[in-house]
């Protein structure tokens, strides 16, 4: 079952992307049309994955929702406010492709940074960061410096940091890309558990079809040049997903569906790419 980006946004929606286009370096010779006329509505506690070929504008869409950049046209609402207002009120947590840890802070102090900027007291910060360290199974490394950790461990610290303030919205850009398969599956299960328990809305960028299918309620398939949404696939494997889910026929069925949608997106891109030249 596929639906076009829902057309009846409500004030209580977590994210509303309304006819958003993004062109970098507009009017210059190096102009890039990254996104074109995007429409997407994400309800609270929804888990939405963005998937598509490299350069189709997944990170750009995430950065627009985060109000790190402003759209060329169209508008974005986050938690019923303008995206920039939501950023000022720190309504979201974000994890980037690179861990982006501060190398002069210990692991624990890195996790506490967003809490410091929210003005939390010392003991409250310490308590929360200790919890987060347990969650990502790095309690033994609390007082280590980031460079003493492996790339995957650093990424787990960055994820703990993005979750630390329990934001209502999580924006994640390929956060598990650097992790090994076992850790990755563990982190996926943990992420689902946390989000279900705290009713967190998640927008999750990934290159992995199984990951998108396993985690999401909906998978948004995008195509490049310029970035568009070609299909939105409902997944809903149910809230009692566990390791066995990965072996079920419905899981494989959805994987096939997403793969075909991705192929369709690429095929649609073919002639278009030629036209553009």
């Amino acid at each position, binding site marked *: 079952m596929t639906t076009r980006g829902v057309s009846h946004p409500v004030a209580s929606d977590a994210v509303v992307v309304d006819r958003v286009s993004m062109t970098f370096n507009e009017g210059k010779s190096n102009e890039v049309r990254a996104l074109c006329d995007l429409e997407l509505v994400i309800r609270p506690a929804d888990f939405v994955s963005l998937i598509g070929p490299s350069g189709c504008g997944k990170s750009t869409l995430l950065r627009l929702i985060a109000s*790190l950049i402003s759209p060329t046209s169209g508008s974005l609402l986050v938690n019923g406010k303008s995206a920039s207002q939501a*950023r000022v009120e720190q309504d979201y947590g*974000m994890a*980037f492709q690179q861990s982006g840890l501060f190398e*002069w802070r210990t692991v624990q102090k890195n996790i506490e940074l*967003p809490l410091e*900027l929210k003005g939390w007291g010392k003991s409250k910060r310490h308590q929360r960061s200790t919890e987060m360290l347990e969650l990502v199974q790095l309690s033994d490394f609390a007082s280590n410096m980031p460079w003493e950790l492996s790339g995957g461990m650093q990424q787990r610290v960055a994820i703990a940091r993005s979750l630390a303030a329990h934001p209502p919205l999580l924006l994640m850009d390929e956060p598990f890309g650097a992790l090994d398969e076992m850790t990755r599956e563990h982190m996926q299960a943990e992420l689902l558990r946390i989000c279900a328990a705290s009713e967190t809305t998640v927008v999750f960028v990934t290159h992995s079809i199984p990951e998108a299918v396993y985690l999401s309620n909906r998978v948004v398939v995008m195509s490049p040049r310029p970035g568009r949404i070609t299909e939105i696939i409902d997944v809903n494997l149910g809230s009692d997903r566990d390791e066995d889910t990965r072996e079920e026929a419905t899981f494989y069925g959805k994987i096939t569906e997403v793969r075909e949608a991705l192929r369709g997106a690429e095929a649609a891109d073919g002639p278009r790419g030629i036209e553009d030249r």
Partner: protein
Amino acid sequence: MTFKKIMGAIGPPLIFGAIFLGIWELIVVVFDIKPFLLPAPTAIWSEFLERSDDIIEATLVTGTNALIGLIFGVVFGVAMSFVLMRFQVANELVTPLAVALNAIPIIVLVPVFNNMFSSTTEVPRQLMVTLIVFFIVMVNVAKGLRQVSPVHMELLRSYAASPREVLVKARIPNAVPYLFTALTIAAPAAVITAFVAEYFGGRQNGLGYSITSNAAASRNAASWAYVIGACTLGLIFYLVAVGLEKVLSPSQHSTKQQSGGLAPGGASA
């Protein structure tokens, strides 16, 4: 283990130094080179022992000038780097300024300073050291304050951090390793400047003056004995700076991040 490590680090240069001195001594003896051309290491050493009180006194004079200039230069350099950070235009001037200063041997300003102050004060020399250190520190620290990684900037933006919070949480800590790199460049440069400044006249007391005056009087071995003092002083300043860096800024990352700081200013004149 640590002793082995230390020996591994300083062993080779020590052995090299010993061989070098041995060959030097041998050449002077075998070819019967006259002391006014090149004195033997043993002659220099006995001269050094004989004049050790005078040498220590001269070293203290030059060392004090270097230290005072270093302290003032660091303070003003750090202060100025913050001012530069506030102004985008000034910011863009830093790199060309550093390049220009590299080309101009500003040490030649010493005679000008000498004329400005009475000949019985150390101020012109200290001023010269301050100036050299100031530029080294300013250029490097300004770079550290400015070159915060884009991921960090984006992250802080996502936290809606104020400019002041960005300064405290990212810019200043980012600049700390740059400051220490600047110190390891500035500390030996301060000694060299303090000592070369004495070549241009002024009070007759420091290492630089003693070296030139003894050389002028053909007391070559004595002149070389003061060079030993100069080498020791430079080494002490450098090692203290490196030690401070190791203790106060033990980030592995920082050493990888920057490949040597910028060193403007004709300190090598």
